[in-house]
């Protein structure tokens, strides 16, 4: 059998199943759904500008190193590091009483959350069938402000790893959760369940060499008065495909997203965000800054859906893109789908080169053109740094 779905199904059939019946049942449902779908292809919105072929390619790593981080806080201290490896996970310190971290396979049935996948998200659906590692993090109401780093360190760089993380934040919690790739080829699903009046700062920091691949699906369920700030940095990679789905399940919550995508050589980055204003009085602000160089390609899309009755929703989508070479490509699409009457919404997208007037301004002060370009790029990235 050929094709991605067949490969996934074959892989699933070979899995050793000592799991509880309810989880086997969930996987079987996903398996059946997968059987009814087609391989990801360019006819799909989410894969239109992605090189699907790279999901099956293994590219020789050579000696290439990873690009440098655009974020200033690359090496900050964390209260706890969760290192996920081929053999499970390990913690840098003991968990306090208010923090429980366990293997995702040990999740209780009542804590499991079904995620909605379809043809567009078929690669993420494969994760439900195949995930065999990941963590469940529960932070309870009595928690102190906490910073946790989830660090992926897999020895086999050519093997796809399927991970699922489920993070539950109780009412009133203040947490920072950073996700970072040290090594490996990942297909990861993250679910953040954010209770009332909870503040989450989430950072996704994926810096890949031109031979590495990563697919992520990230769902944020926000209850009333919750606040989520999501800062993503996606640099490099043969393929990076990220989908962020935000569900407002209460009122007066806020989701702020900043995303920096930088591609060079032959990189292919897809950064998608889908915000669902199911209820009234919620606010979402999305700021993407993408920079493509050489023959690389970026697709960034921000979509907001405002359901009937979700009045007083406030939406802002600000996508700006810079092309640094003639052969680089960027596809950028802000989208609003509004079914409510009273909504404040603004969206915009620009694609262009570095502003010549600004470059000249820097040069006229004595700064050489290459350094002037670097300063301009840094300046451009800063606009998306939301934390």
């Amino acid at each position: 059998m050929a094709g991605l779905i067949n490969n996934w199904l074959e892989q699933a059939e070979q899995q050793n199943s000592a799991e509880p019946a309810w989880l086997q049942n969930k996987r079987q449902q996903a398996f059946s759904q997968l059987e009814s779908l087609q391989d990801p292809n360019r006819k799909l919105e989410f894969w239109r500008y992605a090189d699907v072929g790279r999901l099956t390619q293994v590219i020789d790593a050579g000696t290439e190193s990873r690009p440098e981080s655009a974020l200033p806080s690359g090496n900050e201290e964390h209260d706890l590091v969760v290192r996920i490896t081929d053999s499970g996970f390990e913690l840098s310190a003991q968990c306090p009483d208010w923090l429980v971290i366990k293997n995702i396979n040990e999740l209780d049935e009542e804590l499991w959350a079904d995620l909605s996948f379809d043809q567009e998200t078929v690669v993420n659906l494969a994760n439900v069938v195949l995930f065999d590692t990941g963590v469940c993090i529960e932070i309870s109401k009595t928690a102190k402000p906490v910073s946790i780093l989830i660090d992926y360190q897999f020895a086999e760089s050519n093997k796809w790893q399927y991970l699922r993380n489920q993070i539950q934040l109780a009412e009133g919690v203040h947490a920072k959760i950073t996700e970072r790739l040290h090594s490996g080829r990942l297909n990861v699903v993250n679910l953040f369940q954010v209770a009332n009046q909870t503040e989450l700062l989430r950072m996704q920091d994926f810096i890949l060499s031109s031979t590495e691949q990563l697919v992520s699906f990230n769902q944020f369920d926000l209850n009333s008065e919750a606040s989520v700030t999501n800062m993503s940095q996606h640099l490099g990679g043969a393929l990076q495909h990220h989908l962020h789905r935000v569900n407002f399940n209460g009122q007066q919550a806020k989701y702020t997203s900043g995303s920096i995508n930088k591609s060079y050589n032959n990189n292919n980055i897809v950064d998608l965000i889908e915000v669902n204003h199911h209820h009234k009085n919620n606010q979402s602000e999305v700021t993407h800054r993408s920079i493509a160089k050489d023959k690389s390609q970026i697709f960034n899309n921000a979509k907001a859906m405002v359901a009937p009755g979700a009045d007083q929703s406030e939406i802002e989508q600000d996508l700006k893109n810079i092309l640094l070479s003639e052969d680089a490509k960027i596809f950028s699409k802000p989208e609003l789908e509004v079914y409510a009457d009273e909504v404040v919404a603004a969206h915009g997208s620009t694609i262009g080169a570095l502003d010549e007037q600004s470059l000249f301004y820097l040069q006229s002060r004595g700064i050489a053109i290459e350094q002037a370009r670097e300063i301009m790029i840094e300046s451009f990235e800063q606009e998306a740094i939301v934390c």
Partner: protein
Amino acid sequence: MLKINDVYAKAGDKEILKGLSLEVKPGEVHAIMGPNGAGKSTLGNLLAGMPHVEATQGSVDFLGKDLLDLEPEERAAEGVFLAFQYPVEIPGVNNMYFLRTALNAQRKYRGEEPMDSAQFLRMVKQKIKDMNMRDDLLKRPVNVGFSGGEKKRNEVFQMGVLEPKLAILDETDSGLDIDALKIVSDGVNQLRSPDRSFIIITHYQRLLDHIEPDFVHVLADGKIVKSGTKKLALELEEQGYGWLNQ
């Protein structure tokens, strides 16, 4: 210091300067006045090396070097400074970082040691105090959220820090209220010295009440049609430029 000899130049496809000649000696202040579209800003941009402003004929000698042969950053390091008519905003880059980068880039070009953070901080604090400007300017991103007056003040402050040999002020007085005009003019006057020259491009005589020029030139249709002393500026204020067409 500066010798512009019979320069023709175009901005984009349009020929703007048509045989302009001007000599500026060390310590002199030259005011360039003229009607809209005469080529005043093109002259400033040509000297600073703006892309798409290109000399098609003539020469510009600056301290023995062919200025037109140098990149904009090389011209700056050689001592040319253009105070922009419309300074650009650079979000996320604070003035302090920007100025230190610029200063050290110029020092590197001249073969001088870079200035470390502490030295630089002491120097800019003193400069900003001497120029009667607010030091919050240093922490703010370059020109972002600045009023028109603040942008022009920032240009003059940058000039003070970079200490050029030839400063070209392109309509630095436009958009300034009386107080801001005084602050900017005082800043320029503080920088006047026997080895530093100025070309002041302006529409109005009022700036020249504060900065006394040695020469005033009238630029029309791409070349200097009349030169004189400060008195010429006063005449222009009274008569306008209508006489140019007679």
